[in-house]
């Protein structure tokens, strides 16, 4: 986005539920939308732009896509964007909303995410896809039993092979998340765990243990993005979007390298746009579907050199108040919440809390004026979309 086209995140809301037995997916979307609108101090009729992805109720209904939820919410829009990039969609939506606002296409944008995989009993990580047969790769992959967890596990295995990364180093990422989650009353897992707890938990797919995996939770979140005039008239400290980068990564026609992800490209684009460097970042929300996701992403974003992620995350370096790079201070997907199996939304929300100074006092980063949020959608080992945002408190 251009330097004179800044947009602001003016409203945030994270649904408190982690198991939504009594609520429909449509209602969860409505509740998070209402929460974010109220947090911003606006009303529903202020919304003229709406951004959603494939998690919305009715997405698969014939002829529906995003229209079902727009109808249900009663939105009257002049701008719509339903970019689908799985768990990273919402970071892309923020970037697109900022561009649309700068171009005068809308004034107040609403972004929603919700899901209830836990109530639906969905085995997110360990089930093999049986649909999507129009995908060209399906016939060459599904016979081999690819699951979310074993595709990420192969990345971990290769990283260990090339760089000597250990299970104990990966475990530190979960340990840090658990230190933060103990202070979050809504977190699904609030017990502090040790490196030993992680490496002694059952192997799901070598080398990833149960505690290397994120939670499966219900809930959702929403954001309000608007221009400077409106943002500065509202009650919260303005949080400005100063950089955004995006990149999908895939199998490159068979030239596969599992040691890096799309953050290798999305990160530098976001940093260049923002005019800052990794060393300037006070707090980072890093997508944490698995511990290995965090480690590879941190390297690719430039917080440490490629191959040095294991040493970087060890010994509490990601714990707020202890380490050099406080991350996922809400407990992240590893401990707090991973609604709809899409963690990008909650990454943005916690970064905004840190910049507002409204994270839990035990995990609030002092003088937090510059934060990064990164999302990964899809599977690290095959195809995914990486999205990076850099946010600044004015």
């Amino acid at each position, binding site marked *: 986005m251009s330097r004179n086209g800044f947009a602001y995140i003016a409203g945030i809301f994270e649904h408190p539920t982690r198991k939504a037995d009594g609520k429909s997916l449509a209602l969860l979307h409505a509740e998070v939308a209402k929460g974010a609108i109220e947090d911003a101090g606006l009303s529903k009729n202020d919304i003229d732009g709406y951004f959603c992805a494939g998690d919305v109720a009715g997405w698969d209904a014939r002829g529906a896509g995003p229209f079902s939820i727009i109808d249900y919410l009663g939105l009257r829009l002049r701008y719509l964007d339903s970019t689908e990039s799985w768990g990273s969609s919402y970071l892309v939506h923020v970037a697109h909303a900022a561009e649309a606002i700068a171009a005068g296409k809308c004034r107040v944008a609403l972004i929603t995410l919700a899901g209830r995989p836990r109530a639906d009993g969905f085995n997110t990580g360990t089930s093999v896809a049986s649909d999507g047969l129009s995908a060209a790769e399906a016939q060459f992959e599904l016979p081999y039993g690819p699951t979310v967890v074993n595709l990420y596990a192969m990345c*971990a*295995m290769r990283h260990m*092979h090339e760089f000597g990364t250990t299970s104990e180093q990966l475990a530190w990422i979960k340990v840090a998340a658990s230190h933060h989650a103990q202070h979050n009353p809504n977190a699904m897992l609030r017990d502090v765990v040790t490196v030993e707890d992680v490496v002694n938990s059952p192997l799901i797919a070598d080398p990833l243990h149960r505690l290397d995996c994120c939670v499966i939770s219900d809930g959702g979140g929403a954001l309000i993005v608007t221009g400077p005039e409106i943002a500065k008239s509202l009650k919260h400290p303005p949080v400005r979007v100063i950089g955004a980068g995006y990149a999908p990564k895939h199998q490159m*026609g068979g030239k596969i390298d599992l040691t890096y992800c799309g953050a290798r490209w999305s990160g530098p684009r976001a940093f260049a746009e923002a005019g800052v460097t990794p060393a300037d970042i006070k707090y980072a929300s890093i997508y944490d579907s698995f511990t290995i996701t965090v480690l590879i992403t941190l390297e690719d974003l430039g917080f440490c050199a490629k191959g040095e992620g294991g040493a970087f995350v060890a010994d509490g370096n990601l714990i707020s108040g202890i380490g050099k790079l406080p991350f996922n201070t809400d407990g992240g997907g590893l401990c707090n919440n991973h609604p709809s199996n899409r963690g990008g939304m909650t990454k943005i929300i916690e970064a905004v809390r840190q910049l507002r100074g409204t994270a839990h006092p035990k995990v609030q980063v002092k003088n937090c004026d510059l934060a990064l949020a990164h999302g990964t959608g899809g599977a690290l080992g095959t195809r995914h979309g990486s999205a990076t945002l850099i946010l600044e408190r004015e």
Partner: protein
Amino acid sequence: MIAAPTPFPETTPYWEAAAREKLLLKQCASCGEYHFYPRALCPFCFSDRTEWREASGRGTIYAFSVTRRAEIPYAIAYVTLAEGPTMLSNIVDCDLDAIRIGQTVKVVFKPSESGQLVPMFTPA
């Protein structure tokens, strides 16, 4: 049970060859690159002059993971073929705990649910 592949019209030669226990690859006659999985248009230069080649069936394990949380544990892997491309597959007919990255493997064919043979790999 091995899920049966659902071929496309343009990929049926691959599966017909697999039924005869042959592994086919696509090579581009314009840029010379092999690619995987096979496409009609080269994913590197977008030429439509892609040609089927019989692979040696030899390769090395690039990465693998044994899925423990399954009814029967199995090893998913990326195998780098002697011709260059890396393909997703399974490592079979071996001790799952003895699989290593860099190990040399050779292709074997195993029946899927429909009876269609699919290429897998075993230590060479």
